[in-house]
């Protein structure tokens, strides 16, 4: 116990004194959060919208406020005619227009189908399809009877629903991606910091010196992991808080559950770092291994960016050994949906299994290394 504390205390002092480690632990998360956060921010907001309301009924006003309140559209002009819209479009005062036919209110009341027209500036095909996606969803959410008639002005691409819409039905791409980002950053900091710290001891020869002492591998591993666990947990919570401030990430569930999920995930990540360090002999090699066994899977195979359900079968099988996969389910459930443990306990169990196995594997390898 005492040796464990000694190893831990020594580690903390070293981290404190070593600018490189501190950099990894503090600045890399901040850097990734900003870089990826904004790069992955696919949302297009504040689209200047013109409305031509030829109906003027409560239903038409409901539709208009649906657009405005979505947060995506800003009401920039009220158009009186098609010519008006064309002029506003050409002068770039608006990027989108909503045309409501005169019989909309009556048709909805009569239970008939009604068509609303959405016009979008098609300068940028990507933006146009995304905006069309938003409009589509708003229109159908107001009433199932409404039939949006989509028109993209100029070089209009055939309207296809943007693939992002598949895995982000709420069309909140930032909110969907930020949890993945949190998982990714936590993985990087935890794996890199432990792996480098052990490998550095190997390079320096202190590892061999420590192994000469009658300290058990367990005390060494636990002592070494504790400070990094504390630091990476603090760093991960910081990333969560920053995501709330920067990207409006909600917190609909319980903090305790979030901390539990985070802890299980981080222990697995620290174990992965230790495992990497038992294989790698140099910091450079450790870094490269970490990329292959931790970063890439977390980025590609976790459902962070690419939905698991749309992966080929054998790749889907691979995702079962990627801890971020389970963590993301738990994180999204807690943060976005406010769901209770019923929704994600199997994932917590999977995280615990991963953490235990990888820690055991690392201990066995560390203990055997001298042979």
């Amino acid at each position, binding site marked *: 116990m005492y040796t464990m504390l*000694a190893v831990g205390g020594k580690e903390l002092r070293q981290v404190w004194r070593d600018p490189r480690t501190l950099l990894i632990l503090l600045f890399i998360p901040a850097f990734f959060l900003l870089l990826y956060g904004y790069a992955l921010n696919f949302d297009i907001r504040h689209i200047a919208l013109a409305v031509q309301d030829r109906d003027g009924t409560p239903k038409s006003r409901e539709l208009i406020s649906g657009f405005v309140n979505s947060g995506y559209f800003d009401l920039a002009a009220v158009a009186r005619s098609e010519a008006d819209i064309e002029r506003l479009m050409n002068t770039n005062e608006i990027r989108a227009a909503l045309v409501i036919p005169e019989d909309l209110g009556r048709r909805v009341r009569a239970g008939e189908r009604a068509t609303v027209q959405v016009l979008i500036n098609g300068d940028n095909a990507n933006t146009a399809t995304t905006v069309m996606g938003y409009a589509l969803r708003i229109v159908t959410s107001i009433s199932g009877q409404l039939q949006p008639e989509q028109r993209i002005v100029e070089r209009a691409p055939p309207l296809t629903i943007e693939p992002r819409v598949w895995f982000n039905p709420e069309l909140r791409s930032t909110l969907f991606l930020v949890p993945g980002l949190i998982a990714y950053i936590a993985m990087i900091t935890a794996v890199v910091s432990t792996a480098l710290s052990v490998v550095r001891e190997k390079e*320096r*020869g*202190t590892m061999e*010196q420590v192994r000469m*002492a*009658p300290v058990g591998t367990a005390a060494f591993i636990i002592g070494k992991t504790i400070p990094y666990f504390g630091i990476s947990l603090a760093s991960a919570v910081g990333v969560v808080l920053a995501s709330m401030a920067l990207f409006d990430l909600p917190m609909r569930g319980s903090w305790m559950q979030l901390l539990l999920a985070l802890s299980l995930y981080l222990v697995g990540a620290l174990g992965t770092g230790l495992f990497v360090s038992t294989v790698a002999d140099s910091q450079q090699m450790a870094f490269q291994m970490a990329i292959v066994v931790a970063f890439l899977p977390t980025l590609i195979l976790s459902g962070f960016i690419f939905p698991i359900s749309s992966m080929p079968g054998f790749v889907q099988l691979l995702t079962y050994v990627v801890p971020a996969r389970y963590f993301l389910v738990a994180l999204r459930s807690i943060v976005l949906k406010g769901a209770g443990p019923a929704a994600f306990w199997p994932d917590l169990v999977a995280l615990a299994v991963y953490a235990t196995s990888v820690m055991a594997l690392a201990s066995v390898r560390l203990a055997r290394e*001298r042979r």
Partner: protein
Amino acid sequence: MDAIAVRDLTRKFGDFIAVDRISFDVKQGEIFGFLGSNGAGKSTTIRMLCGLLAPTSGSATVGGVDIRRDPEGVKRRIGYMSQRFSLYEQLTVNQNITFYGVIYGLGGAALDERRRYVLDLGRLGGLENVRARDLAGGWRQRLALGCAILHEPSIIFLDEPTGGVDPLSRRQFWRLIDDLSAAGTTILVTTHYLDEAEHCHRLALIHAGRLAAIGTSAELREVFSGRPVLEVQASQPVEVMRALETFEDVEKTSLFGMSVHAVLSAPDVDPAGLADRLRLLGLEVTSIERVHPSLEDVFLDVVERAGAQG
């Protein structure tokens, strides 16, 4: 009983035999030197004796403990300083001592006493709060030694303890080793500095994983009994060396800086006559005299014979 007893110790890495059936004994309080060029297998032998590496075959006891059966027991009884001074660069002298003390199970008053001893031994007084990385070579070396003997081991293994340290610090370090040995500590030390070998009570020369010779330095020099060694100073040492090698009564030659060492094949060869024969060939000889064979002569000779035997 011997402090260290080694029997046919062997270690293979794959097909490569790094240490090949080495046997020797080290008496208590002895400074035992392990000499060999880089890659000879010195560190591998030491790491096996310390319980860090399992032997492929053979056996050894260290402090009476079998290294195969109880490597942890070995660890408790010995001190080990690896070829890199294994200190935590970011930590201060005091923090390094505390850390190594605690992992060896020291604490409280015992640790404080050993701390004072180590600071005193390494002349580290006043440097307690200096970070290890800011220490000069000699001080780092003595701190590393101090950390390795905090738990008062009776047997110490030092793997190239003087690498990269200035000559003055090296001399101080050896004085320290002498003191430890005088106090009854057994020391097994590896080095490739042959001048340091003179500090050792007994030496083992190892070459390509094999024990090539063992004994006191005087005993080792006996390979040259009946084969005098001459040192020739000349302005053209390489030409002189070539000429000497053609002489019947010269067994072999080697170059030591600007002088040539010639091993004669018989005890009664006249150095002056040899000088004359060189001059006849038009080579200038500044001086020629019989010298005491150095350990380097011994080493080269032993290695050559080992090579000849295959």
